[in-house]
């Protein structure tokens, strides 16, 4: 494993780690809704405050959290630039000219700056909060939570359990396949393969000696896993009990109150303060 940081579980014990995974998923949804309901900077500030609290009580180093943002840096810069350049609205938000610069269809306006600042903050909050979910929840807990939340779909005969199993197996396989990739890469590098040199075509070609063995081993693993499950009489979802039962605790209540306060606050700010201030 070269880089265990992006979107992967960070194994420490903390308040946030111990919140029920079902609630964490719901909170993430609530938070996303709050971000998109927030239409002024006070409301965004409130969202940011909740994020800061989450990070503070998660014991995940801030450095790690920033790394998740770095992954979308290009996207952020790109959207910000597009929004600044193509917004021709002449609304005024502060003293000064409404349009700073104009050339053909491009312009820099006050509205453009405000809009793109808004967008950037939203994006960063969104990605950071989502990565907090994966930093503080093991993949197993995550799929357990998801399965539990999707239970209602069982009424329409949707194979929720199978879906959850597929997800958890896929998640489980990621680090294994990463290790395997590393091993095969090492073996081919030892045979003089140049992995990160040359132009795009050369690089893609250099991938073949890694990809083929990797695919073969993935298929073999899948086969073996299927056999192992069958030989232990795995029969799918019916009447299966859980090793770890999910239970609500006082932590869940506190977290719930915080998120509920956030959503209420954002809605109130939206109604009484209005857009952009």
């Amino acid at each position: 494993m070269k880089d265990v940081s992006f979107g992967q579980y960070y194994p420490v014990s903390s308040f946030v780690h111990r919140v029920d995974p079902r609630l964490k998923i719901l909170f993430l949804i609530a938070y996303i809704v709050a971000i998109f309901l927030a239409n002024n900077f006070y409301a965004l500030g409130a969202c940011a405050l909740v994020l800061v609290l989450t990070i503070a009580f998660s014991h995940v180093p801030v450095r790690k959290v920033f790394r998740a943002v770095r992954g979308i840096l290009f996207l952020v810069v790109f959207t910000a630039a597009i929004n600044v350049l193509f917004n021709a609205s002449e609304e005024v938000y502060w003293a000064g000219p409404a349009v700073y610069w104009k050339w053909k269809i491009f312009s820099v306006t006050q509205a453009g700056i405000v809009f793109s600042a808004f967008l950037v903050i939203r994006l960063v909050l969104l990605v950071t909060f989502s990565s907090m979910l994966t930093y503080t929840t093991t993949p197993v807990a995550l799929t357990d939570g998801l399965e539990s939340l999707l239970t209602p779909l069982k009424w329409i005969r949707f194979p929720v359990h199978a879906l959850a199993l597929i997800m958890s197996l896929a998640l489980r396989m990621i680090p294994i396949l990463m290790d395997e990739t590393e091993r095969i890469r090492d073996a081919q590098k030892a045979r003089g393969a140049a992995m990160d040199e040359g132009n795009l075509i050369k690089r893609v070609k250099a991938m073949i000696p890694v990809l083929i063995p990797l695919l073969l081993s993935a298929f073999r693993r899948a086969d073996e896993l299927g056999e192992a499950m069958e030989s232990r009489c795995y029969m799918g979802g019916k009447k299966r009990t859980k090793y770890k039962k999910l239970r609500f605790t006082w932590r869940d209540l506190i977290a719930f109150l915080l998120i509920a306060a956030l959503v209420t606050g954002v809605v109130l700010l939206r109604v009484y303060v209005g857009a952009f201030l």
Partner: protein
Amino acid sequence: MNPFPLRGLPLKGAARGRPPIITIKTMQITAEHLTYVYNPGSPFAVKALDDVSLTIEEGEFFGIIGHTGSGKSTFVKHLNGLIRLPSSQKHYKKPKAKKGQPAPVEPSLKVGEFDLADRKTDFRALRKKVGMVFQYPEAQLFAETVFDDVAFGLKNFEKDLKAEEIEAAVKAATEIVGLDYAAVKDVSPFDLSGGQRRRAAIAGVIVTKPEILVLDEPAAGLDPLGKKEIMELLHRLHRDWCRTIVIVSHDMDEIAENCTRAAVFSEGKLVCALPPKELFLKSEELLSLGLDIPLTAKLCAALAKRGVSVGCDFTVDGFVRAVLGAKGEKR
């Protein structure tokens, strides 16, 4: 008789009354204070190597033993630069000495003329000289035919070889590993049997005639006959192909029988590096490290309990000679 007599160090040869073998030592491996941490600074941090200093002479058949997780693979991956020393990486900052303390020792590693602590070292040239066979090497096979797979490394290292030269080298490599060149060259490597696949993979490493060949548990997962054949192959290679062989192994009989010296690793530290003859005198210590001892050592211990002490070099041959000698004395 052992068809492959031990290739002792020059000194040993002289000591045994044979003419000393004169060698110019060019591909010596010298590691000093080698330390390596996986995922430093994270909760996953593992100190896999801890201040290892070790010299492997050219011409040795060098064994590395140790409990699982003791850092053997990590050590051998340093030898061809798959794991880089900190000082050979970009953005390297020299650690500063704290006040009142001696300056921290920098790890260093030299393989022949290559200084692996130096960023400017040509790692590809190094890898040509230091071949590496990983555990389960058959996992690296990928090409459509055995020929293409074996030729892969050769073409990587030497860009302007003629077709005949490539063919000659591939033929030689497949034959020395014990495959029938004409029969396998156009076959898919995935159609070979397990043992054949491993041989093909080894051929794909040795095809460039590396001066040092490193093997990480080359006999893992093979049946006893397969193991024996691999060891015979290694002796063949040591005799005619690669000057130095470094082998990681869990099989103590193998080590006792074949190696000039063996290093013992434990929790990332080097415990000792001794010829098997001296190493297996320390049975107690090895057992306490969770390691096995060769059958000959067990037999010696059992005999000692019965009051018969036989001193031997722990090869099967040496043991038999020692026992016969002891018996003769009694008569």
